[in-house]
């Protein structure tokens, strides 16, 4: 199957340079070729299994566990206690 790498990369917010396109295209086509071997399954539905042990959490009030400074310590760019991002509205 032919893959439009540029389109998929755009959806993924990943930039792939022109010279890398053939390599990614080849890899992806081989990988898609492998995953296409998945057999068709009939007689199954995807409704949830009531026996699954997932539990809903009880309601518990959320409290502030961290200070603003602790949370901002990992931010790439901070100014006046806020995270700096490029201008989004002209």
């Amino acid at each position, binding site marked *: 199957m032919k*893959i439009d790498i540029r389109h998929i990369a755009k959806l993924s917010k990943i930039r*792939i340079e022109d010279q890398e396109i053939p390599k990614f295209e080849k890899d*992806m086509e081989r990988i898609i070729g*492998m995953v296409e*071997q998945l057999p068709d399954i009939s007689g199954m539905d995807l409704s949830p299994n009531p026996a699954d042990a*997932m*539990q809903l959490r009880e309601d518990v009030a959320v409290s502030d566990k961290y200070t603003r400074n602790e949370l901002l310590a*990992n931010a790439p760019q901070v100014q006046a206690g806020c995270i700096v*991002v*490029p201008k989004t509205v002209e």
Partner: protein
Amino acid sequence: MELYQKSAVELSAMLRRKDCSAREILSSVYARIDGAEDRVGAYVTLTREKAFEQADAVDAKIAAGEQLHPLAGIPVGVKDNICTKGVATTCSSRMLENFVPPYNATVVERLMQAGMVMTGKLNMDEFAMGSSCETSYFKKTHNPRDLSRVPGGSSGGSAAAVASGEAVVALGSDTGGSIRQPAAYCGVVGLKPTYGTVSRYGLVAFASSLDQIGPMARTVTDTAMLYGVLCGHDRMDATSVLREYPSFTSGLDGNVAGLRIGVPREYFSAGVDASVKEKVQEALSLLERNGAVIREISLPNTDGALAAYYILACAEASSNLARFDGVKYGYRAKDYTSLNDMYEKTRSEGFGDEVKRRILLGTFVLSSGYYDAYYKKAKLFQKKLSAEFEEAFADCDVIATPTAPNTAFRIGENVDDPLKMYASDVCTVTVNIASLPAISVPCGVDAAGLPVGLQLIGSRYSEQTLLRAAFGYETLVGGFDGVAALS
């Protein structure tokens, strides 16, 4: 024998008898790290200072006569995708090179409550995507049994640290075999627990419905003890299971009489090395001679599992890794002209090629027009495979297979061929797809002297049975090889 070569069980007894201190144990492990790390490369970060503080705290408690957990004072390495407060958690990625979490993962809290001593953070394939530890942004880890070969992956640093004596036990994580395959390649024990039994809170997500943290050690008993620390309900993880857990060490009696072992013929197909098949068959014969009942079974859907795995895991990864955008934490590109430009440059520079491939695949299978053909089909397959396993467990207690179709390959051998790399997960991915527990134990070596792994798969929540079976095998072979000599 040096302290770093001993098992957690032996060290625990020595601590209680006051034959040694926690500081002496840690000193021995760090001396080994200092002597071996330049050849093995298991760690991304060492936490020497904190570790000695933790060891001294344990010694003070022992001196005060306090009752301690059996694993108190035992050095443990932690895979670098598990969050550690105040200690960098990089996922071996440029994207998180400078990320220092403000909190501990639940499993790390549990290690600390037990009084365990964290030696450092262990190398891995970038974001746990890989089977050889070669996709790490920082370094290659070498297999302690043969330094020219890969340790497996993605928990390659964990397996190598345990095999080389650079840690007594370690935590790994397993999404498609990432604990078991490196355990097999490095000749150690690795347990992938039932989904939901170990909290994922603080584990950097790869494929949330498949990821599970688990223990790695040089003996089954150490593995069982560490699993006992890790498992349990956690309200911080919505998929955490609410149930009571038995003691995982009390049933370890070495007896395999009457144990019903199913052997699925599909796991011994043409793609599995002859030497691997031979060693696994020898292990099964030994178990049979000692009273286990071997039954050949069939799991006909095995063939589709690798395809289903890469669809499900990559679909979830493409969504999970969307959070790495350079805004709130992690790497941010230097020059950009707009928000979109910043996202694209950040992700292109921050992620390695394997991570990009998997995000692209996941995005593709979820994209408009392809969802039914890939993702939905894979989810249906998952149900079918789970039902098939459930049926098989009506007649057997455990299912035995090779852990990997091969033994450790040479560094660089498969790095340019993603499909060849993915094929080394062929025996392990079924377990994650069906949410089952499985353990890998060493079962001898091939002609080149490389370890072969025997995988035992159990039904959901049957870790006790798995550990008993694995311990039975360990007893029959007179124990596994200890720390590698690194010659």
